[in-house]
């Protein structure tokens, strides 16, 4: 049982965000909005080559442009750039126009090198190499359990399939960037669009070679991150350097074009899966051979940052005999960064697809086969709740049997996530006039963190949330971690609970009022005289936990003449422990589902193999879901206060694509094996148009043979779950 109060006044209800009014009036100031006195506009020059040795960069003409105050190169001396869009130099000046003029006048001498941007091409032995001293294909990691070789012989039924998932871009609406002021005494203030104010602080201190105590990072508001905004980035380091050089604040916010090239992706995946079961549908053996690219640094043997391209397998199911092999492939493209549930949507799409194929072959209902093989009781319960709410038994029919040219289908898939809490500190001040201020060095990505602070304090003090001054987004406040891994609410809420409980006790002791909550609060405060109550508190065990399930059901219409897919309904059944704010929790679920729809149907970075450039670094060709694309989304939240707070942001985006893919396969009777499921792929699957010449999947068969031939190293298979 958790220590949260059994009866609540504010927790678990629907409370509008405390900063909602600031957001609807334009009063909310984001990192890109701040205008400190004398601020300069900064812009970055990027490589137009997918691979090149940079011999020299001449900034002199750029520096002479009227209004330009600084121009710097990212690095001195010769260097090798390895993707289209890698940073070369930057300028800062009094206007965007001065910067645009200056960038055009920078002369770069470079020797272009051979490159490869197609993953399947990159694996071939004669491919151009991203790093000359290492093959693009990294050493495979293997996970083995049971006896995979003998197990398939014992199966009554075996299905095989090849699946691929695309590169997805984060595309937070506020681009990456910072406004940074370095004073002459090296005191640094940075207004950062970040998910981790303290990691930006530490990064800038290291870049500027100054103590962390000299850097202050402020993030009052930030316009989305989804995993890609943890450090200051090259753009932050360039802004800081030019600010130090000029003595003026420098703002560098990336353009949408730059945002699409250099600041993170969800890695691609290519999966060959073999799955075997007995005739009851009980899974016996799972064999995965997979590779994917997390960009230029992928492959393991190459230098550079970025996450890997691995994913959890056999995703959420219990299979006694498993072999899962995965290799990273380097290509000349920007690096991966954590992206909302890293690895999970890829793992979910492959596993949930092949599981449905197995169910079809056995003639078992897809929900039933999941109930048979899912080891998590909670998720099994969610399937049962969902089956009833969704009217699954009425809606499900054998694949391809829906009449007419527009076929209806249904699908289902599940997810898992951690989402626990961790070290967070907070400070509470209760003033003699009854005002309350809570300070916590967390940040709000849009999930409603500021409101969580206010709500928990309101609950403890028995005051309405609007009476709490909730202050976050400043490294001068007590430290909290980065907002990643769905940990923010589970980290922050317990810390606020702790500090407020202590502050209330102190108030009661000092004032002599036995219960200073609610109506007694102001009177108790007046008895404080001159001294406010100031308390420190922190996250502790017993108020949060980790580990959620979550299932989604999808219903789609597929037009077999045009290939167009209309998602009609998504039902979400999700647990998240104690629901802190029902309103914002629901919003996160909506958001996860809609982002999952983008992954299922629309979004895909397209690279040109001939030139190595990204062909769709903008919103007219990189398609995000719009308002009219959104189906009815029905949400069932399982409230389990006894578990404490658990994060919800990531699990809700995981199963959407798999559920939609299964619904499409159910509708048309054939499976589309690659995401996004665009109309051309639907028509191709239906045999109405010939297979495209250049799709990755057309070459996929041969690629797996290449993977097979390479020596694999035994070792732990990385699931790439963020720390």
């Amino acid at each position, binding site marked *: 049982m958790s220590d949260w109060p059994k009866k609540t006044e504010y927790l678990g209800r629907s409370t509008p965000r405390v900063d909602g009014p600031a957001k609807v009036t334009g009063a909310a100031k984001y990192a890109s909005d701040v205008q400190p006195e004398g601020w300069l506009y900064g812009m970055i020059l990027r490589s137009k080559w997918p691979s090149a040795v940079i011999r020299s960069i001449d900034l002199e003409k750029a520096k002479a442009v009227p209004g330009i105050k600084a121009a710097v190169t990212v690095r001195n001396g010769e260097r090798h750039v390895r993707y289209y869009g890698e940073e070369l130099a930057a300028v800062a000046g009094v206007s965007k126009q001065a910067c645009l003029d200056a960038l055009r006048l920078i002369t770069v001498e470079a020797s272009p090198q051979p490159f490869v941007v197609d993953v399947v091409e990159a694996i071939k032995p004669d491919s151009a190499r991203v790093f000359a001293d290492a093959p693009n294909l990294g050493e495979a990691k293997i996970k083995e359990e049971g006896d995979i070789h003998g197990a398939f012989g014992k199966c009554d039924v075996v299905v095989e399939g090849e699946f691929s998932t695309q590169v997805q871009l984060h595309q937070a609406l506020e681009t990456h960037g910072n406004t940074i002021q370095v004073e002459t005494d090296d005191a640094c203030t940075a207004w950062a669009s970040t998910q981790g104010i303290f990691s930006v602080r530490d990064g800038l201190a290291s870049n500027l070679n100054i103590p962390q105590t000299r850097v202050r990072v402020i993030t009052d508001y930030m316009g*989305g991150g989804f995993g890609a905004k943890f450090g200051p980035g090259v753009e932050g380091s360039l802004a800081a350097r030019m600010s130090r050089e000029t003595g003026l604040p420098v703002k560098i916010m990336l353009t949408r074009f730059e945002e699409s090239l250099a600041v993170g992706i969800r890695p691609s995946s290519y999966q060959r899966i073999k799955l075997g079961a007995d005739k009851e549908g009980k899974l016996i053996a799972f064999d995965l051979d997979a590779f994917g690219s997390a960009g230029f640094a992928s492959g393991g043997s190459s230098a550079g940052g970025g996450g890997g391209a691995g994913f959890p397998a056999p995703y959420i199911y219990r299979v006694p005999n498993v072999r899962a092999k995965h290799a990273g492939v380097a290509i000349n493209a920007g690096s991966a960064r954590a992206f909302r549930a890293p690895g999970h949507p890829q793992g979910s799409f492959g596993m949930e697809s092949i599981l449905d194929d197995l169910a079809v072959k056995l003639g078992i209902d897809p929900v039933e086969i999941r109930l048979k093989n899912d080891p998590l009781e909670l998720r099994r319960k969610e399937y049962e709740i969902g089956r009833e709410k969704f009217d699954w038994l009425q809606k499900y029919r054998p694949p391809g049997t829906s009449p007419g040219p527009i076929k209806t289908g249904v699908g289902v898939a599940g997810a898992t996530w951690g989402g626990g809490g961790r070290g967070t500190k907070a400070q509470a001040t209760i003033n003699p006039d009854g005002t309350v201020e809570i300070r916590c060095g967390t940040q709000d990505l849009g999930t409603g963190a500021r409101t969580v602070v206010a709500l928990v304090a309101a609950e403890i003090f028995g005051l309405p949330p609007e009476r709490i001054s909730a202050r976050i987004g400043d490294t001068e406040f007590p430290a909290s971690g980065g907002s990643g891994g769905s940990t923010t609410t589970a980290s922050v809420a317990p810390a606020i609970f702790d500090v407020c409980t202590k502050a209330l006790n102190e108030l009661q002791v000092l004032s002599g009022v036995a219960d200073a909550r609610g109506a007694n609060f102001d009177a108790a405060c007046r008895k404080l005289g001159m001294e406010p109550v100031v308390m420190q508190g922190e996250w502790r065990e017993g108020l949060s936990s980790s580990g959620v399930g979550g299932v989604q059901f999808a219903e789609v219409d597929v037009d077999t003449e045009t290939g167009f897919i209309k998602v009609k309904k998504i039902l979400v059944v999700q647990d998240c422990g104690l629901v802190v704010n029902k309103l914002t929790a629901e*919003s996160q679920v909506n958001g996860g589902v809609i982002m999952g729809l983008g992954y299922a149907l629309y979004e895909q970075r397209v690279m040109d193999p001939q030139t190595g450039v990204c062909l769709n670094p903008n919103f007219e060709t990189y398609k995000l879901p719009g308002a009219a694309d959104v189906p009815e989304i029905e949400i069932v939240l399982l409230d389990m206060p006894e578990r404490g707070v658990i994060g919800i942001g990531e699990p809700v985006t995981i199963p959407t694509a798999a559920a939609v893919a299964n619904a499409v396969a159910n509708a048309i009777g054939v499976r589309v094996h690659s995401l996004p499921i665009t109309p051309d792929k639907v028509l191709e699957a239906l045999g109405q148009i010939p297979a495209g010449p250049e799709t990755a999947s057309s070459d996929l068969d041969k690629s797996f043979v290449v993977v097979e031939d390479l020596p694999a190293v035994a070792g732990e298979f990385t699931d790439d779950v963020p720390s």
Partner: protein
Amino acid sequence: MAQEHPLNHPVSRRGFFKGLGATAVATVASRAEVVAGELTKLDAERVQGPGAIPVDLVINGKRSSLQLEPRVTLLDALRNHLPLTGAKEVCDRATCGACTVLMDGVPVYACMILAVDAQGAKITTIEGLSPDGRLTKLQEAFVTCDGLQCGFCTPGFVLSLSALLEKTPQPTEAQVLKACSGNLCRCGSYPRVVQAALQAAGVKTASRCEVIRHV
């Protein structure tokens, strides 16, 4: 520019000379030269920039006199030459709607309008929507329905839908979707945005969410 809009001036000075030229050239060569010279002079007067020129903008009822290069967009002028950062720069190419402002009541993408061309129009930004500090019904509904998450797209949505409600006080859901079809949200707030617009118009909407106590 608004003051030279053909509808405002059915017969412009330049148009007069041009017309004169067309008929005169055929007959009297010397007069044609005079006309041509006159035209060149007028064209030179019309060429502005590339340096900064005076630009007068009326924003939220206040006049701002700026010195801007003619290539400066209205969005750039608001965000980088004025303290009006409510309109956001997200795509800078007319695809996302985050920079939406009202020009004479019509929602437009501020990134696609040159500041010089916005002269003479009444511009309303998100900062000017509730000048007395009291939220409009729509803004209030955005807050209570949670029609936003990170909030970066919100000013654009609010202005697009404010313009809709001004013209169509009782919109259907389809009209709401159409009105914000030029706005993108990456957090996925669309269901609540639609709900907010309908609620502001007095149309009852229900949340399709329930919380089940799990034991």
